[in-house]
């Protein structure tokens, strides 16, 4: 019987092992991005921008032209690239410290200009690479190494809902929040990522997909517990859905 290949590594993914911790969901999201790039047939006409954070080494895994930006500045780097080469598909991939804290100005203004780029925003409610400090997205009462008694809104304010905040702007074309905590969600996440890239290809402006993700290492949980914690705690505060659709 002839062999039929039913599953393979996307072309837009390099053939190396990732450095991510067991149970981390970055790998799933990387793969979804690579699958979408393959399906749209844009591998050789795509430029990605890696953030500072756990995904800083994204450029080792996504097999397209890549930049590695300064902390929080990926949307500015993507803007510079896209304005010179509008024929390229340009995306950033950023964590919550990178995008919602140090890079808050860059993401808001890129979205507000309707910059024709795509942003994949990983929200895992914590700083991963630096060892589990409080992020702008850390939930109330959630313990981190810099809010060891739990996040207190009096001292640190409330977790930022980035997707909803950016959806208040006129210019963005597509904004959605998804998760990859279960296979059923992964399918939806891929649809959203594909829609975001398509929005850019159609010239309909800024697109962002917020992906609720886990960080078992810094949450101090087993991978399965982390997935459960995400569903029980993050989804109620960060509702899944589409907040802005292209005209």
């Amino acid at each position, binding site marked *: 019987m002839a062999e039929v290949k039913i599953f393979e590594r996307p072309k837009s993914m390099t053939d190396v092992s990732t450095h991510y911790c067991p149970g981390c969901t970055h790998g799933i999201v990387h793969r979804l991005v690579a699958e979408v790039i393959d399906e749209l047939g844009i591998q050789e006409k795509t430029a990605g921008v890696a953030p500072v954070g756990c995904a800083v080494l994204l450029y080792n895994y996504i097999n397209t032209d890549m930049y590695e930006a300064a902390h929080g500045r990926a949307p500015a780097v993507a803007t*510079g690239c896209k304005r*010179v080469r509008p024929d390229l598909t340009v995306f950033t991939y950023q964590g919550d410290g990178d995008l919602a804290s140090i890079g808050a100005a860059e993401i808001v*203004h890129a979205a507000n200009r309707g910059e024709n780029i795509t942003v994949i925003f990983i929200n895992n409610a914590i700083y991963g690479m630096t060892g589990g400090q409080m992020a702008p997205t850390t939930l109330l009462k959630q313990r981190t190494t810099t809010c060891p008694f739990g996040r207190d809104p009096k001292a640190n304010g409330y977790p930022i809902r980035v997707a909803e905040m950016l959806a208040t702007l006129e210019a963005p074309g597509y904004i959605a929040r998804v998760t990859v905590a279960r296979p059923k969600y992964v399918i939806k996440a891929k649809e959203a990522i594909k829609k975001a890239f398509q929005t850019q290809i159609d010239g309909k402006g800024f697109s962002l997909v917020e992906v609720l993700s886990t960080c078992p290492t810094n949450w101090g949980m087993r991978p399965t517990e982390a997935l459960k914690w995400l569903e029980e705690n993050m989804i109620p505060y960060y509702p899944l859905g589409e907040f802005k659709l292209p005209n």
Partner: protein
Amino acid sequence: MSNRVLMKGNEAFAEAAVQAGCKYFFGYPITPQNEIPEYMSKRLPEVGGVYLQAESEVAGINMIFGAAGTGFRTLISSSSPGISLMSEGISYITAAELPCVIINVMRGGPGLGGILPAQSDYFQATKGGGHGDYRLLTLAPGTLQEATEFIMMAFDLAEYYRNPVMILADGFMGQMMEAIEFKKVKLNYDIPDPKEWAIGYMAERGKRALIKSLSLDPEMLEKHNQKLQEKYRRMEEKEVRYESVGVEDADVVIAAYGTTARIAKSSIKKLRDQGMKVGLIRPQSLYPFPYKPFNDLPDGVKHVLVVEMSCGQMIEDVKLGVQGKVPVSFYGRCGGMAPSVEEIEEAAKKLLG
């Protein structure tokens, strides 16, 4: 018929960049350089380019990182506090070996300081500013004519070395008007085709581009630093530029750059008219610095007088050049104050005894 046009400095800087083939400008308003972004906002669309007002200098320099990564000619301008904000990005651009031109129309500091001319960013431009072992090729024009020529040359230099080039001007140069002839300046250098390394040519090259500065392996990072240093040594061999006037018979040599050198030239003329032998060394490249003319001063030179619109920054390089052979004195004004022709004349006379 002369092709000279009367133009304001900042606008002339911008036009020189356009004529050098720069089509992409990312800027943020700050006095006294606002005419550069203003000019670009109407001029660049005429040549099919893009002007974009960034949300901050921090974003602006990172837009340059993205744009320069495509291999096209890019320009950004600012004034002192704005350059401080860009310094992190400049460090990344040097690390990733991207070409771009940065104009600093200097104003008085530190802090918010003032909006009037100064030369107090010499250290920032030539010794770092941002983190890590990097260098900016730094050119200091003395007139608007020279500025336009240096700006055109800067794009070639940036691409040849794949390193940012800074044009260190001051608020006088940005705001004054002067007759300029836009001459085509082109270096006869073998500039590598950006398609060999830039973003956007994966299919043609058969290989993707990687524009980055991260290097977690210390041996690799050391190697990368050594490669950069080797490049800086080549700049030091090839890119030293200076003007030397009346040094051969001089008793006192004045060292000054930019607008200050221009004022000093008037002082030297007056001193010469009175029979006093005073010369001038005007560094045109601040990095690499022209140490040699200071090391090779004729035996008759008894004193060097450094004049700056700062509290004394270039003087440190002059001293490194002179190597203690003769005394080096300083006269400076700062905070937006400029030395007058008479003040420099007086300072030189004191040394002449």
